[in-house]
């Protein structure tokens, strides 16, 4: 794994000018060479509306504004583009203000009951890495609580006015499948709190003991409250896993997520315990996703990931072309031909399974259709939606027929990601499941119904 491979991987890729700009600005600081390069890009033909649209898709609008407002570049940007970006930046700041205010109340409610909590992703990253709240948009508040205290945590939030956004049945399903206490909202307030009891979904093939993550925390002061965030190596592992997991579905926020990984690596390069990565370590089950995140963070955004960390996590038979395909199809492209064809829990990946799962996507169960198409309860003509699904699938089939190469690429990416999810130590025992988490209580209260 050398820097040469990195450069070749990116330089030979066909990429729009707007994507090149986004990759250039997806970092807190640029050096002189990067600044000159960015200047050249901005002087070239740029579709400014597309650039802003792509920046929003990748959650990099704040970062784009941060760089473009610098004296070296501001004169190159149309005034209306700059004004629009400034508005988006201000919106990020306003959301941060609101979210941290809510976070303070949530942490206070948990602290009153002495429930330990770990702040995940956005809120922690803004405080510890980005520092400027306009740079990284916050979408929700993710908080990890111990499984044994989850019921109390849920009640504590209900006590201050939070309600689940889904009905009791779906909430129970989310608890079981996603290991999170559904999403909680407060009436009339645009904030969503997600209480997690684990860091990976139940149907994930990863058998990860969440206790490792509880040991890998450090204390910080956020929103006027003492709380915990993950230590650098666990933060990196968690961010890499999230980045990887989301690439099964879409490229939404992908460069922003990669930027998070790269910036944590930059800020914590000397303090992170990189030796924890690798199949034999406590983060062993996450090795594939960790490699994927670290490889792209280093090769795309120039993050200072040590060679040893990449060597320790590199999957057998890895070829840079696989990462390049992932970058093309699942990070930059917004048009997937086929997404998440195979269930993550499936042990084997092959054409037959892909076809079977594809068929299930065309003909899902009624409950899925009702949710997907936002039907009111009791809607009788749900079967007509199968015709709609068939018509949509026909469109996908035509795309596949016109561009079979793209379908082959999608299949290839899926298969590679699938294999990364299943890395095991050679000849070693399978990692044990964190099964103390499997006894999740189904009953969470008696007034959970209805949308808020």
């Amino acid at each position, binding site marked *: 794994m050398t820097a040469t491979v990195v450069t070749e991987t990116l330089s030979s890729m066909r990429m729009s000018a707007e994507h090149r700009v986004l990759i250039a600005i997806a970092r807190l600081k640029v050096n002189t060479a990067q600044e000159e390069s960015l200047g050249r890009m901005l002087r070239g033909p740029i579709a400014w509306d597309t650039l802003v649209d792509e920046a929003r898709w990748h959650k990099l609008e704040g970062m784009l504004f941060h760089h473009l407002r610098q004296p070296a570049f501001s004169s190159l940007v149309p005034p209306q583009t700059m004004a629009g970006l*400034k*508005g988006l930046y*201000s*919106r990020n*700041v*306003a959301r*941060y*203000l*609101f979210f941290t*205010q809510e976070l303070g109340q949530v942490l206070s409610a948990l602290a009153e009951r002495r429930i330990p909590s770990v702040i995940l992703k956005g809120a922690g990253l803004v405080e510890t890495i980005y520092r*400027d*709240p*306009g740079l990284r948009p916050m979408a929700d508040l993710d908080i990890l609580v111990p499984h044994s205290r989850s019921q109390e945590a849920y009640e504590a939030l209900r006590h201050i006015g939070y309600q689940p956004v889904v009905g009791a049945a779906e909430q129970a399903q989310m608890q079981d499948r996603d290991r999170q206490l559904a999403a909680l909202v407060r009436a009339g307030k*645009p904030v969503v709190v997600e209480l997690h009891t684990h860091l990976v979904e139940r149907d994930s093939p990863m058998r990860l003991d969440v206790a490792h993550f509880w040991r890998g925390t450090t204390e910080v002061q956020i929103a006027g409250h003492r709380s915990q965030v993950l230590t650098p190596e666990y933060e990196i592992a968690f961010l890499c896993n999230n980045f990887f997991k989301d690439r099964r579905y879409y490229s939404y926020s992908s460069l922003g997520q990669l930027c998070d990984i790269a910036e944590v690596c930059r800020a914590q390069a000397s303090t992170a315990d990189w030796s924890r990565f690798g199949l034999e370590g406590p983060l062993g089950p996450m090795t594939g996703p960790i490699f994927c995140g670290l490889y792209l963070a280093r090769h795309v955004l120039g993050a200072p990931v040590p060679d040893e960390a990449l060597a320790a996590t590199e999957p057998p038979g890895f070829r840079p072309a696989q990462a390049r395909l992932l970058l093309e199809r699942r990070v930059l492209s917004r048009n997937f031909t086929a997404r998440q064809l195979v269930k993550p829990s499936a042990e084997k990946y092959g054409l037959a399974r892909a076809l079977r799962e594809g068929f299930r996507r065309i003909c899902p169960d009624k409950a899925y259709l009702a949710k997907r198409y936002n039907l009111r309860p009791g809607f009788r003509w749900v079967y007509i939606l199968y015709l709609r699904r068939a018509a949509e699938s026909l469109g996908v089939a035509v795309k596949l027929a016109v561009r079979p190469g793209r379908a082959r690429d999608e299949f290839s990416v899926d298969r590679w990601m699938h294999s990364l999810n299943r890395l095991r130590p050679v000849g070693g025992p399978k990692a044990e499941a964190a099964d103390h988490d499997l006894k999740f209580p189904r009953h969470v209260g008696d007034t959970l119904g209805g949308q808020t």
Partner: protein
Amino acid sequence: MKQLNTVRELERLAVTPASDVLFQEVDGEVVLLSLRTGEYFGLNPVGARTWVLLTQKQPWRAVLDDLLQHFDVPEERLVADIGGFVDELGKSGLVKVISVAA
């Protein structure tokens, strides 16, 4: 509010940031968020500096001296601009403005 022309007129106003307003200073500018309405506002560097001084409960004379030191503007123009600024903040529910006896 009628346009303010003198420091004395300004000093008759007691301006207090509303309790349901949050603010964040970034790079010399300020973003205000009204928790009551959910609206947010951006203040330019002059407005931002004025807002910060208001939150510090500085007397008007000190506010004017500070702004005159940082921005190249005649005092009469500054007084008039601050009057307009306070008026806008008041209309948006971001501050409470009370007229006090001289």
